[in-house]
């Protein structure tokens, strides 16, 4: 039962900096207001009721939800693991009773628990007051929470994988940037995937990156095709998660064999 204790320790560390936790209450209104102005202008100027299937409210909420998903999934695992390899601290991680994967997972869980409580919940209340979204129900929020939860583990597994690649690349900063580009374009955080040509959209929604943003967003916005699609997508996302975890295990075994530390 060491994992909950580690999570609790992480939370204690985060709560030492209370100002940082309140930042989202400042950030979100800025995003909200900007998106309202932006999309109101685009919609009124185009004279259309919807753009690529998205109404004005849905577009405003789409970008709000992109932020919500970051509140659920964001962690520094790739940076943390990469820095441990560069600094040599990776040696210490190999002799600890808890694996580095579990240790970093506890840090990520702490970070996101605080994010959900202090960022996601206040933000969703704030948005609901200023721009009520008629299609939002308890079902859509529930489906969003489950899919965002899976997205958290998938993003964590991706980050851990990138961090481990530091054993081969030494510095993974550029690789972290590549990850952001891929997620932004192929995951749907930059622009809804429906805005791409249909043939491309059909490919993109089947890739693992769509599980990070596209599917949770669809469920949140009430654009999913019922529980059937939700269950299918959840299972698909879990399969992709399994693939990433398997790669992590294989790479970890190789990395440990390859790594050489000096000291004593």
């Amino acid at each position, binding site marked *: 039962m060491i994992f909950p204790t580690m999570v609790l320790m992480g939370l204690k560390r985060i709560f030492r*900096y209370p100002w940082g936790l309140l930042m989202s209450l400042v950030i979100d209104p800025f995003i909200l207001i*900007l998106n309202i*102005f932006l999309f109101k202008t*685009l919609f009124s*100027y185009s004279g259309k009721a919807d*753009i690529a299937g998205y109404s004005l409210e849905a577009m405003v909420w789409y970008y709000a939800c992109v932020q919500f998903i970051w509140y659920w999934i964001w962690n520094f695992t790739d940076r943390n693991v990469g820095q441990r390899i560069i600094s040599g601290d990776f040696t210490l991680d190999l002799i600890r009773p808890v694996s580095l994967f579990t240790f970093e997972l506890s840090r990520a869980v702490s970070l996101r628990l605080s994010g959900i409580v202090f960022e996601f919940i206040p933000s969703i209340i704030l948005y609901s007051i200023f721009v009520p979204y008629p299609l939002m129900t308890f079902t859509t929020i529930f489906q969003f929470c489950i899919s965002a939860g899976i997205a958290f583990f998938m993003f964590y597994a991706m980050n851990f994988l990138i961090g481990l690649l530091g054993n081969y690349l030494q*510095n993974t900063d550029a690789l972290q940037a590549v990850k952001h580009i891929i997620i932004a374009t192929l995951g749907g955080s*930059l*622009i809804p995937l429906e805005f*791409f040509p249909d043939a491309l959209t059909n490919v993109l929604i089947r890739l693992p990156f769509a599980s990070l943003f596209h599917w949770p967003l669809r469920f949140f916005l009430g654009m999913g095709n019922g529980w059937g699609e939700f269950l299918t997508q959840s299972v698909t996302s879990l399969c992709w998660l399994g693939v990433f975890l398997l790669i992590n295990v294989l790479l970890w075994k190789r990395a440990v064999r390859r790594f050489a530390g000096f000291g004593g």
Partner: protein
Amino acid sequence: MKKLHNLSLPAEAVSLFFFNSKMLLMRMMQYRFNFIMGLLVAFGFSALGPLAQFMLYSNSNGYPGWNWDQILLFQAVLLLVNGLTDILFGSVRGTIDTLMERGEFDRMLLRPYPPLMMLLTSGFKPYGLGTVVVGTAGMLWSVIRIGVPAGLTGFVFFFIFLLARILLQAGVHILYCFFTVRWIYPMRLGEITDKILAYGNYPMEIYPIVLRTLFTTALPFAIACYWPAKALLGPVSWTAFTALGGTILFVLVTVLLWKHQLKSYVSGGG
């Protein structure tokens, strides 16, 4: 570095910037693969903004008062200014974050130059180069397509607004340093400043008249991209110059805040 002391402070700042940049480049070249990949990735990042704009534009009628060529120019100018500010100040946040987290800020106070100067001159980030290249190429392409109706004056104003934009970014970073020294662990403060500055990433026509007036004058978000792009597209109104005044005032306020914070700074070490 001895001869630096004979120069005036601004000249010393420039020399220090180049010295710090050279040192950083030497450090980065130790990880050549990462460095080259980082430069290439910057091109990819540069493409994201125009890609999103193109998708939005092609699925709607765009923004009032801006045709597609003008929006491309706007995006190119945005990339250019973002790239330039990234090259000059891209590492400032990381530097102050690390100093405060590790309790090493005291070292800054012992150095022969003012701490703010030390921080701002350590901001070099070479990855912005890719963005500048893409932005410049896009700007030249747009200028060739639509011309510069304002002629040579347009270019002069463009460079004045470009300098003001760089000054604005310096002010934003000074403000960031102020809050970081105050709070020690700023968490998502960088994100806040980015989100606020994002108001300048769109044509001002999307805002209601009250906000538009505010952003083009006293709260100078329009200096971020709108006025530089407008300067190339035609004669700019007098309100553009109030934005210049607003920028200078903002930077002065941030410097005063920084000085005030520095006086009340208490070291954690012994």
